């Protein structure tokens, strides 16, 4: 018995220490974002004993382009996620119900390439191509690219969800004379709704966080939040307050999301690891 309780104590200690390590940077970012300069650049650091201020956020929202950038991020995230979900669920259904069809091997290879290749290898030629077609600095280009880079995850995840749906249900619908399309929309999609939600959340996270594509493909017009956040270190004089405020604003929706949708998340997060 003694041994077991020792193991428990160790496990608790490990979990508590690592939870602290996971949360502290978040606390520290937030606390820096509501400090005045005199409370920021001091040693020993001030954890709680300071006068909070909203100054850093005010200066952030005073930046004229900021609302535009935030809206860009939201718009690109939502539309590209929808696109990946629509095209991804159609493909995933084919993957789940047919082991072989024309072009499957190449499609598989392309999806793996997306997962394995550094995005720069693909984005570099895209940058060159986009100048021919006048597609540089457009949010529609970003939407298309995000969807392309994320659709493999959608397909892998949704395939595993569709696999869980027993074929007997389709059999019954088939007897009733349902066509493929009707069956897909009226029978399969509603049954896979939890899977669609989980996939959608996971993919919107990927889109929200994406940096390499917009840093190359977006100018002032299509700029997204991560590019804006990154621009805080381009000047030599690092001002921690606004930096922390910008980081907080980028991470806040995600933290809110994790609190509310725990159970959908875990499925999505391990996706792309074990594929079908």
């Amino acid at each position, binding site marked *: 018995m003694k041994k077991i309780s020792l193991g428990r104590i160790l496990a608790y200690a490990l*979990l508590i220490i690592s939870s602290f390590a996971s949360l502290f940077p978040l606390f520290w970012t937030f606390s820096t974002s509501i400090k005045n300069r005199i409370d920021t650049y001091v040693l020993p650091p001030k954890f709680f004993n300071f006068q909070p201020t909203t100054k850093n956020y005010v200066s952030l929202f005073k930046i004229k382009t900021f609302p535009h950038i935030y809206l860009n991020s939201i718009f690109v995230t939502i539309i590209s996620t929808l696109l990946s979900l629509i095209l991804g669920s*159609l493909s995933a259904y084919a993957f789940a119900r047919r082991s072989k069809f024309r*072009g499957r091997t190449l499609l598989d290879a392309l999806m793996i*390439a997306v997962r394995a*290749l550094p995005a720069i290898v693909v984005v570099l030629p895209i940058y060159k191509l986009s100048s021919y077609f006048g597609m540089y600095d457009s949010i529609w280009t970003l939407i298309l690219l995000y969807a392309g880079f994320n659709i493999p995850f959608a397909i892998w995840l949704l395939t595993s969800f569709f696999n869980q749906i027993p074929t007997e249900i389709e059999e019954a619908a088939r007897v009733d004379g349902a066509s493929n399309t009707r069956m897909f929309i009226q029978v399969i999609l509603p049954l896979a709704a939890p899977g669609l939600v989980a996939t959608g959340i996971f993919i919107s996270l990927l889109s929200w966080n994406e940096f390499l594509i917009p840093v190359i493909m977006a100018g002032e017009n299509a700029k997204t939040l991560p590019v804006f956040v990154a621009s805080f*270190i381009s000047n030599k004089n690092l001002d921690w307050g606004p930096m922390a405020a*910008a980081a907080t604003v980028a991470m806040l929706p995600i933290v809110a999301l994790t609190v509310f949708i725990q159970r959908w998340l875990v499925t999505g997060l391990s996706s792309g*690891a074990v594929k079908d």
Partner: protein
Amino acid sequence: MGLVRTSKRKHRQLTRPIGHYTLGAWLLLALTILIPLLYGIYISLLDINLASFLPPQFIGFKNYTTVLQASETWATLRITIALMALGMTIQIPCGILLALALHQQLRGTKIFRSILITPMLLTPVAVGLTYRFMFDTDLGIINWFLGKFGIESINWLGSQTSGLMAIVIVDSWQSIPFVMLLVLAALSAISTSLFEAATVDGASSRQIFRLITIPLITPTLLVIVMIKIMDFLKLFDTIFMLTRGGPGNATTTIGLWTYKTGFVFLELSRAAALGVMILIITMPVYFLWRKSTRNVR
């Protein structure tokens, strides 16, 4: 994801051809991945420089010989491999330990799990910004904390060794949860009757771990290694935010070097050649990954 796989033959009787359902995905991937890849191979044979106004010339494999002879190519490749090795030796054991702790189903496991996965969801660029001021030499909280233990201030982002350490620390903060989740899934898939039987037979907990747990999670560990190799090749945001690959090129990985060649030195064709090389380097990883995932189910 432990899923029941229904028999393929049954599907075939049931469904009419639906291969064309993949057309949309096909079109999207062709447009965003396949065509750019092919075009990338094409421009790697030209001499495009973004600063030059001369029409591009076809120069064959000259970019490749230049790239292969450049010391930066090999230096950045070595740095990438060093990061991989360092990162995996930290992340995989930590991920396993945390998974084992969570797997004990102690009270509060769900809350701990929620807290622990939070870092992996956050925007890497914002995380980099946060650590950027936490790593500050004079006023950063990390050096202050280490100072409590008598460790002198480290110029984290100012040298190769400490810079790579800093990158690995930040990346580990974000990717240990991923390893943890995958190992946790593998642990949960092991039938409890196996453990019970072993306990009845008088096996010690150490024996159980060594003879049952480890062999049964090994396929998952292989998958994790493959994914980590791919992810370290892809690692960009964190390095970009923390060190920009500096000082000099001391923390530049091959991916970041490709970016610099193309968008800092404006040698687009040479960068494309580097890209094709990365494609070739990662080729074996694809196959190993596909093989390793097959064993997991």
